C-alpha cells in the first residue's frame, strides 16, 4: 500500500508557481467582497484611481513562504516541519545539503531573499478579508458613502490615508488599517 509520503514531491523552486495570491476582488470572502466592490465602485465613479495589489493569499502559500525562509535562514530541522493538508511537499531531500539548496531556491523563486524576518503564517489576506490598494486623485472629489450620501473630499492627503475617505470606507465595512505602524494601501474588515 502506498504511503502518503510516497506521493510527496521534493521541495524546490517549482513550488513558487503553486497556490498563487490574487488581485481579484472576487476572491475576497463573503460580505467583505461585496463591501469592497461597492466601495471601489463609489471611488471610481468619483474619479479616484484604484490600483489593487493584493486581495486573497492562500494559507498554503504562506506555509511555503514561512518554512522555506526558516530552513534557509534559521536552519530549521527539515525532518520536523509540520505537514499541511493539500501541500504534498517533502522538505527533506536524501542529502541535507540538497534540502538546504532546494529551500534556498524556493526562497529565491518566492522573492523572499531580501525579507529580514520570517513571513507570518497568518494574516487577514489568508482569510480573504483584506485588500491592498493604491488610491490617488486630483483636486476635490465627491464620493458616495454606503448610505447614499455624497461626501465632498477636498482635504489632503490624496491617498488611502485621507481621513474623510477612511470614514466613507467604514460606512461600507471596509476599514483602514488602524494597527501599529502606517500601512497606506492596506484595508480590511476589521482594521487589522
Amino acid at each position: 500500500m502506498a504511503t502518503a509520503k510516497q506521493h510527496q514531491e521534493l521541495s524546490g523552486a517549482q513550488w513558487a508557481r503553486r497556490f498563487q495570491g490574487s488581485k481579484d476582488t472576487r476572491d475576497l470572502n463573503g460580505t467583505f467582497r461585496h463591501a469592497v466592490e461597492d466601495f471601489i465602485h463609489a471611488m471610481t465613479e468619483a474619479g479616484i484611481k484604484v490600483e489593487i495589489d493584493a486581495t486573497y493569499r492562500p494559507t498554503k502559500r504562506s506555509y511555503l513562504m514561512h518554512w522555506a525562509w526558516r530552513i534557509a535562514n534559521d536552519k530549521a530541522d527539515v525532518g520536523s516541519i509540520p505537514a499541511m493538508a493539500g501541500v504534498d511537499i517533502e522538505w527533506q531531500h536524501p542529502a541535507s545539503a540538497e534540502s538546504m539548496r532546494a529551500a534556498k531556491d524556493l526562497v529565491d523563486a518566492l522573492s523572499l531573499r531580501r525579507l529580514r524576518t520570517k513571513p507570518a503564517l497568518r494574516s487577514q489576506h489568508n482569510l480573504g478579508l483584506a485588500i491592498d490598494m493604491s488610491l490617488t486623485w486630483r483636486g476635490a472629489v465627491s464620493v458616495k458613502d454606503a448610505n447614499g450620501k455624497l461626501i465632498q473630499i477636498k482635504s489632503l492627503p490624496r491617498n488611502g490615508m485621507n481621513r474623510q475617505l477612511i470614514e466613507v470606507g467604514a460606512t461600507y465595512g471596509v476599514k483602514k488599517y488602524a494597527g501599529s505602524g502606517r500601512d497606506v494601501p492596506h484595508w480590511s474588515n476589521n482594521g487589522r
Partner: protein
Amino acid sequence: MKTLAVLVCFMASSIALANSTTPKDVQAFIRSANACEHFAGEFDGSLSEKRQREVERSVVKHCQAAQKQLKQLSAKYKNDPRVSKIIQAHTNDSVTSFR
C-alpha cells in the same frame, strides 16, 4: 441584566488598569512588535516591486526597533515578574526571527 452591566464595568476597569499600569516603554515595544508582525504577514513575492519594497522597509523599521527594545526591556524588568510577563506575551516570532 444588572449583573451583566456590573460585569461589563468590571472588565472595562480591569483593561483600563492594565493599560495604565503598563510602563510607557513597554507600551512602545508592544506597538513595534505588533507592527512587525503585521508587516511580516503582508509580504508576498507576487506583489508589485513597489509594495514589496514598502513592506521590506516597514519590516526593518518595526522589527529592528522591537528587537532592540526587547533586549533593553528584558534586562530592565528582569526582576519584575508582572512586566516581564507582559513583555513575553507580546514577543512574537517575527520579532525574534528578525536578522
